[in-house]
């Protein structure tokens, strides 16, 4: 029997006010993988992540996490199952401090001791946050806020971490830094769904990748395969 995937998205359709944005998208994520979802602006990447988290609801198809159907459940239930979503635009709580934001990330966890442990781990990954624990999130620079958003996404110790364009607006060295962190997080055992504009970086990192076009998953393969595919080269890498 083949191993059951951690997350399975089967032929979903998602609408905004009756108008479909996702027509037919399917993909699978095995535990331990980094899976990249790439596509041009407006392809529907964010819509898919928001549907997985329960902020939007699919009108067709189904979403399964650890073998059970999760579509139709409320966002806070889905979060409690171990899916952590670092949303587009970061969704930080601007008037709260860095550490308050991080603690909110750990909202679903009970043990103070374990939360403190994770906090230390996160500070190791992002030392800058440790120096800024009592700074208000909104007064941090864009790059610092992005790191805080990723760090907050790690606080629940998720089974699946979904990152929506974590490198958006970062300078190239910072993009590398974010990619490194993703690699480390993955090595420590967290499964990752990565949505990226930096298509090359994402594909180089990914075990598996899917291309989304106009609300449809049109191509899948390993990161390497897609890097070499004609479609990806032409449409996203400008080669």
């Amino acid at each position: 029997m083949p191993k059951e995937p951690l997350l399975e998205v089967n032929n979903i359709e998602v609408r905004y006010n009756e108008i479909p944005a996702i027509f037919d998208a399917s993909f699978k994520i095995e535990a331990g993988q980094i899976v990249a979802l790439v596509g041009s602006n407006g392809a529907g990447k964010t819509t898919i992540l928001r549907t997985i988290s329960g902020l939007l609801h699919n009108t067709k198809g189904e979403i399964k996490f650890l073998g059970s159907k999760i579509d139709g459940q409320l966002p806070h239930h889905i979060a409690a199952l171990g899916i952590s979503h670092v949303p587009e635009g970061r969704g930080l709580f601007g008037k709260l401090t860095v550490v308050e934001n991080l603690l909110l990330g750990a909202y679903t966890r009970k043990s103070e001791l374990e939360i403190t442990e994770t906090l230390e781990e996160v500070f190791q990954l992002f030392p800058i946050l440790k120096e800024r624990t009592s700074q208000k999130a909104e007064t941090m620079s864009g790059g610092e806020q992005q790191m805080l958003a990723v760090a907050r996404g790690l606080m629940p110790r998720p089974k699946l971490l979904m990152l929506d364009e974590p490198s958006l607006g970062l300078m190239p060295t910072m993009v590398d830094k974010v990619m490194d962190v993703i690699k480390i997080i993955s090595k420590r055992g967290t499964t990752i769904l990565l949505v990226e504009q930096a298509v090359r970086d994402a594909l180089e990192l990914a075990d598996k990748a899917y291309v989304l076009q106009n609300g449809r998953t049109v191509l899948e393969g390993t990161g390497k395969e897609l890097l070499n595919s004609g479609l990806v080269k032409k449409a996203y890498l400008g080669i």
Partner: protein
Amino acid sequence: MSELFIQVVIEGLLWGAIYALVAVGLSLIWGVMGILNLAHGDFLMLGMFGAYWLAILLGIDPLIGLLIVTPAMFILGLGIYKSLITRIVKAPRLTALLATFGLGIFLRNLAHFLWRADYRMLGDTLVGDRVITVSILGGTNFISVPKLLAAGGSLAATALLYWFIKRTKTGRALQATAMNRQSAALMGIDTERMYMLAYSLGIACVGVAGTLLTNFFIIFPEVGIMFVLFALVAVTIGGFGSIHGALIGGLIIGLIESVGGFVGIPALKQALVFAVFVIVVVLRPRGLFGWAD
């Protein structure tokens, strides 16, 4: 003159603390769910009647009644949230405004129907109408004990609420929900429950204020109207959504009303409060401490 003036300031601060607690509840509800609870004063009226009837029918003094009325108002808040407010949270602002306005009218009419329009007053309370004498700056001033108790209790309730919001995990979740509901949901916070909690806490606040008021203030079905108007002004001055803003706004209103009545024509003291309201709205529409974006 100075003795009299100090008396006026004391009076203003005492009333201000009570206005503040009413305003704090209003501000909390607005801050978390963006609903202007125009029925707020009428819940205060219900709290007053609750304490009044406990005293009259069961002989329970308002000081003990506080422990009954406050949780009862919290539960009433839950019920009203579940049956009405949750339906209007996503409705256009005007719909929500009309709904809470209508709820206020309904509660007032209900009170008229059940208890008639009579002015009532509790005699024979534990605190009675005691007055303490204090000397400030060489002069002699008088402080009404029931009023002092109401002000102190209001400040204590405000401080407790502030502590809860700023220092507890649930309070932090309330703040997160207020700032970004979707993002809060992604953290695993049941935001619907946070809305319910904010509304019920807001109503519990007027339960406290209402009960403490029955120790010295008249009780009648329309009593809440003036309070909700003052609370609205206090919240506008302090900034919608801010707890300490509502506190300071409430104190300012109390002082304006009292000092205004002293130096000007007493009949115009409430008009003065609203004049300040207009000035604040023109000069600083977000209020002194507003954090609503």
